[in-house]
């Protein structure tokens, strides 16, 4: 029968080596350290460096010293009309695109939830757009929008409607960008809403149905409140992404025509590299960073999703 086996290597009477002890005691810091160091180096350091750059005029000639200009670059933000245009375009794009994506995604999820829940393959197919390289999406839509031989104008022609320049048209350029973005990112909202709907408990609905609540009432009183945390996350992530819009604009319009699609990311890029003014670009970047931090903090606080 089972007897204490003397042949077993008994645990040593005295705890192991100093190194083992030290490692075990500090494991929580050791495991976190690489990530912390890398992120400090790649985000905190750049932030300070950017502030340093923002108070200088930096010549494109690397041999020339940086010239201290104090708050000069920040003061330019107030008077720079191009910056104001970029700010306005970014705001318009973010609000319109995210609103459409949200309404469309939520609507589709509510309508299709019952039908698509088990059609995993189909669901994944519908998710393809948001996984694709934005550059590939951009050139795809560039071909579709092409005024001469593009598919969209072909459809317009068949429908007897006037042909358009789309991304090249002053009034339609922003609209074209938004359509491409909605195409790519509505599935994101749709998918998250489906996940939210799938996790809804069934009992409250049974109770509500017994209480005689209409579908509409059930939606407002149960579904929407239950979905709120998921909605918050989805919208937050979309807004953050929309604020950094670059690829679509770069390929589809290059910011034109007449600056109608010049968004902040693109403007910073142009200031830094085409106008060779990294100091001023850093000042605009700081402004964007500030807006991002304020927005995301406010959002997370409101939705209490820090953890």
């Amino acid at each position, binding site marked *: 029968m089972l007897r204490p086996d003397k042949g077993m290597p008994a645990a040593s009477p005295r705890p192991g080596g100093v190194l083992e002890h030290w*490692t075990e005691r500090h*494991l*929580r810091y050791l*495991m*976190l350290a690489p*990530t912390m160091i*890398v992120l400090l180096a790649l*985000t905190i350091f*750049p*932030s300070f*460096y*950017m502030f340093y750059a923002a108070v200088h005029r930096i010549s494109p000639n690397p041999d020339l010293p940086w010239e201290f200009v104090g708050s000069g670059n920040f003061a330019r933000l107030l008077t720079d009309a191009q910056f104001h245009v970029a700010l306005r375009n970014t705001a318009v794009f973010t609000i319109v695109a995210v609103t459409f994506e949200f309404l469309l995604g939520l609507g589709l999820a509510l*309508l*299709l939830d019952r039908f698509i829940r088990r059609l995993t393959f*189909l*669901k*994944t197919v*519908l*998710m393809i757009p948001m*996984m*694709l*390289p934005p*550059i*590939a999406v951009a050139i*795809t839509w*560039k*071909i*579709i929008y092409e005024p001469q031989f593009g*598919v969209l104008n*072909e459809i317009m022609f068949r429908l007897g409607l006037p042909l358009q320049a789309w991304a090249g048209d002053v009034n339609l350029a922003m609209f074209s960008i938004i359509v491409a973005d909605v*195409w790519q990112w509505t599935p*994101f909202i749709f998918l*998250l809403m489906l996940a*939210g*709907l799938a996790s*809804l408990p*069934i009992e409250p*609905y049974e109770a509500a*149905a017994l209480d005689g609540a209409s579908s509409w009432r059930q*939606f407002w009183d149960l*579904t929407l409140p239950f979905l709120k945390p*998921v909605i918050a*996350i989805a919208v937050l*992530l979309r807004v*953050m992404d929309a*604020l*950094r819009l*670059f690829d679509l604009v*770069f390929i589809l319009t290059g910011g034109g025509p007449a600056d109608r699609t010049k968004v902040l*990311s693109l403007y910073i*890029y142009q200031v830094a*590299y085409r106008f060779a003014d*990294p100091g001023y670009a850093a000042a605009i*970047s700081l402004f964007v*960073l500030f807006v*991002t931090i304020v927005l*995301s903090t406010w959002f997370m606080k409101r939705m209490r*999703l*820090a*953890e």
Partner: protein
Amino acid sequence: MATIRTRSRGSEMLLHLTAYLTILVALILTLFPVYWIAVNSFKYDIDIFAVPPEWLPRNPTLKHYHEAFVQRPFLRYALNSLLVAVGTTIISVGFGTMAGYALARFSYPWQWRKQISFWILSTRMMPPIVSIIPLYLFFNSFDMLNTKSALIIAYTAFNLPFATWMMKSYFQDLPVELEEAAIVDGDTQWGAFLHVALPLARPGLAATAIFCLIISWNEFLLSLIITLTEQSQTLPIGIAGRVTQYKTYWGEISAAGFMACVPIVIFAFIVQKHLVRGLSLGAVKG
């Protein structure tokens, strides 16, 4: 939706009809652009410009694939993309797994856990354009511009927070008793992580790695700024380079663009179960 309602047969059928029609329309809208770029990549230039458009290529050709991948350095771009993506993924997932585990399991003084988690998340929220100027100046002063290492470093800044949060959420799903059992059974804390937690988190680990590969593969802006020549330029930059002010090489970019999409679609199917979690940074379990 989990609604309980009584509805007449007629309106129930109408709902079914609407739903399936919607799915059909959504499928067409989703797939058409992808189909269109694929189809165009197999057409001769003259057929790409045809009015009305050729819905199916009448004379299919691999000419543009030859142009892109043999005559022009798109193979090189793709290889660069792959190397950078793999390098970024190894670093991000390696470090991120450890950090994610630490944040999921250990307690820290003064609520550090929450603070650090939030800080790591906020670095992910940062628009890339914001950190690109200091990174550019930094790489410039170390003579690292136009290198793949610079790209890997820059991409890590965005993938590491992602990997950390993903892995944190996967580790939080595991019951802590398993690691405690391992510790009482004679393992160290590190051993419990290595022998118990890590094998159990393997599906999450794989999903996180694939997401990192996708994010790096798709990235455009950072690469646009850091790389200059085909030595280090990635696939998206190569594609964008063929859209010039004077001429757009439609066939070539369609071929390259389509090839850039193929691995992503395959990956999307591999990680389909983890999509929700990946896209919401682990916040929604899905």
